[in-house]
């Protein structure tokens, strides 16, 4: 069971109050992109054993989207942050580094 703190309304709620929304920081490829880019955007998702960055929605709550950094093995939640960001904030990266030295996820580490 995950406990996530919604950065939009401040509620620390358990998993059933939220809806998982897949991988965070997706770069969208649509009109104008080539077939390989579009294929990768649609199908080539990260599915790591360890550090993961995800989108979540406070579905049974304030209704807002946010991003979360967590560990798929230990179920530890490193932190949640605004959906309006291009990369995880420094304090969250630092927290992950303290627990999982040398971690990387796509272009972030």
């Amino acid at each position: 069971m995950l406990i996530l703190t919604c950065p939009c309304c401040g509620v620390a709620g358990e998993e059933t109050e939220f809806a998982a929304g897949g991988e965070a920081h997706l770069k969208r490829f649509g009109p104008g992109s080539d077939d390989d880019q579009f294929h990768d955007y649609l199908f080539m998702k990260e599915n790591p054993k360890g550090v993961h960055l995800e989108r979540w929605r406070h579905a049974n709550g304030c209704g807002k989207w946010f991003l979360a950094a967590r560990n798929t093995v230990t179920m530890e939640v490193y932190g949640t942050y605004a959906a309006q960001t291009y990369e995880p904030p420094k304090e969250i990266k630092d927290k992950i580094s303290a627990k999982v030295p040398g971690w990387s996820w796509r272009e972030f580490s």
Partner: protein
Amino acid sequence: MSDAVSPLNGAKYEGFVTVKAMGLQGMITFRGDLSAAKVKKAVKTVAGTDMPGQRECHMSGDTGVAWMSPDELLIFVPYADVDAKLDELHKALEGQHFLAVNVSDARAMFHLEGNGAREVIAKLSPVDMSPNAFGPGEIRRTRLAQIPAAFWMPDTTSVQIVCFRSVAEYGFNLLKTAAEPGSEVGMFA
């Protein structure tokens, strides 16, 4: 004219707390920039209370205002006054980017009364209902079993709940089951 009635028309259940389906209540969903001075002023005029902070709920009787999300409020006014209050909002905020809609007939409201009120909610929602975690003045949007709901505490032994009208009966049955005599847990006693 049709005769407006609330979803369960005042149904009542006496368990270890009293569960009551409440009558008609005017409700306005408001979306906009809650930090804008004009919005604060207009809301205060209509709801008669200051803009609530994060997860706060300022209620007195059937008027008040609850914080629903960083850009959303639920404004409570007497049922008969909704149209007039909406006009007031629209006049006061002309030219502003906002949205205000009458949702009175799209909601159901319940009232729990009694010492076990916290416990009834705790059985149905993933929320810490201990007195040091939740109390009067706050609103919590969450779920009651399988339906979205929001609740607040008018005082330390009562809880008021709003949910969608389409699931009013499900909500009422949940509350009845959770309040059944003999099913007290005594967690917060």
